[in-house]
């Protein structure tokens, strides 16, 4: 049985389609409603973002419907692009070249090959253990000791965040859960809750936001946006319990955990951007910036959700 045969998957995809249509219609309607220049800029950005959402949703639906291998390949590509944005932004030296080549063309494909091979034992330790040892070894062979620890740590961190953590998302498909539906629904649950949490935090923050949480990291993140976004995304997650192996209370708890981890991820990636003096990691997705700007929350939420599900179900 593939995800395509599962009526729940199709039902959920239709709901997403509905949300996209509502969002686009609302975005167009807002265009006529705003008067100020700042308002117009915000609405133009919202409409750009909606275009980005259509694009990403289409890709995600395609990945889900092509079954396991489609999702693995898509997330591998996302990791590759995210790592590229990360490494472009951070300082690296000429002598890091071969280590970086290995990061892109060896470690990243290897991690996703392990996902595809369902080899959980090695999947869980490849980057935290073996790559952790290989990166400094390869850099020591290059013979450059300038800021050595800083450079190894940077590459290791990029691989952990962009590749290792993200690969937990497609790994959900192969998780051994005791239920009679497709695990594609787990991946769907994770991605929808994380992304909705981001969107709803943005919406609540724009409308009610007053007190910034971390003014020096990200002035747009407010307590009001955080509370409203997390609570409403948790509510949506709870409402989706019928399409998960979880009872409603557990779905609520997991959705809440996903939102909190996602928030931490967004804030952490924002701190890195702030340190490097940029606003976005890239320009690939209209209205959203780079790939890493869109998946920052997912990188933190995916491993947590995976392990909680693995432990309890």
């Amino acid at each position: 049985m593939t995800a395509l045969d599962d009526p729940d998957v199709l039902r959920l995809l239709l709901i997403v389609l509905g949300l996209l249509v509502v969002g686009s219609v609302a975005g167009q309607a807002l265009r006529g409603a705003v008067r100020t220049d700042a308002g117009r800029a915000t609405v133009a950005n919202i409409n750009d973002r909606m275009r980005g959402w259509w694009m990403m949703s289409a890709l995600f639906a395609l990945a889900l419907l092509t079954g396991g291998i489609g999702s693995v390949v898509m997330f591998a590509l996302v990791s590759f692009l995210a790592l590229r944005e990360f490494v472009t932004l951070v300082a690296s030296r000429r002598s890091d070249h071969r280590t970086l080549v290995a990061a892109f063309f060896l470690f990243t494909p290897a991690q996703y090959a392990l996902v595809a091979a369902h080899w959980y034992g090695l999947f869980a330790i490849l980057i935290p253990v073996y790559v952790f040892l290989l990166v400094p070894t390869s850099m020591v062979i290059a013979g450059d000791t300038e800021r050595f620890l800083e450079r190894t740590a940077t590459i290791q961190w990029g691989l952990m965040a962009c590749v290792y953590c993200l690969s937990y998302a497609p790994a959900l498909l192969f998780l051994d859960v005791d239920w009679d539906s497709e695990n594609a629904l787990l991946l769907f649950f994770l991605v929808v809750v994380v992304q909705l949490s981001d969107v709803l935090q943005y919406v609540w923050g724009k409308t009610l936001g007053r007190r910034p949480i971390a003014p020096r990291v990200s002035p747009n993140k407010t307590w009001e946006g955080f509370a409203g976004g997390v609570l409403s995304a948790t509510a949506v997650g709870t409402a989706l319990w019928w399409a998960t192996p979880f009872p409603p209370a557990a779905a609520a708890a997991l959705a809440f955990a996903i939102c909190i981890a996602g928030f931490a991820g967004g804030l952490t990636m924002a701190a890195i951007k702030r340190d490097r003096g940029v606003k976005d990691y890239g320009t690939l997705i209209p209205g959203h910036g780079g790939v890493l700007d869109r998946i920052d929350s997912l990188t933190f939420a995916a491993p947590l959700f995976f392990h909680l599900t693995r432990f309890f179900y």
Partner: protein
Amino acid sequence: MIAALLASAARAMSGVSVRWTERPPDDAQRVYFANHSSHLDFLVVWSALPAYVRTATRPVAAADYWCRGRVRRRLAGRVFRAVLIERRAGASGTAAGRDAVERLVQAVDEGASLIVFPEGTRGDGAEVAPFKSGLYHLCVARPELELMPVHLDNLNRVLPKGEAVPVPLICRATFGAPMRLREGEDKPAFLERARAAVMELAPA
């Protein structure tokens, strides 16, 4: 077709974002001159041009590198239709130097646009080395010829000197304002002005 394929491969590898600061690209004949830090440089400039401009644009490359081996010779000759010159020719006044300028003038007279790297060799990407004089002599021979500065950012990190496998980082190619040799401008002044025009395009 190989050319188109290589151009898209270079674009994918360098994830290049292209900016035209002064005007949208057009097919006017001109010499694109850029800073030089990797073997991918001319591919990136070349692939940043619209396809219809690309067909009329020839890179200027070092004969000592591109004549070595059949694959390289074929690539340079058939695919990119490179104008090959002797690198030692940088020393102006020598017979080889005059010969190199003559080849450029000939290519221009045939209607081609050119891509040149006036530093003459690949740098480390940190700064732009002083320009060789070929660009100046070409402009003296054809003073009406238009030049356009191009700045390439980050390519030294994608494929530094001495490495074979590129790291796919995001690069930037910035095309600047067209310029010409001014009347009465001497060689050092012109070369320095051209070099400054490239450096001006570097991101802050």
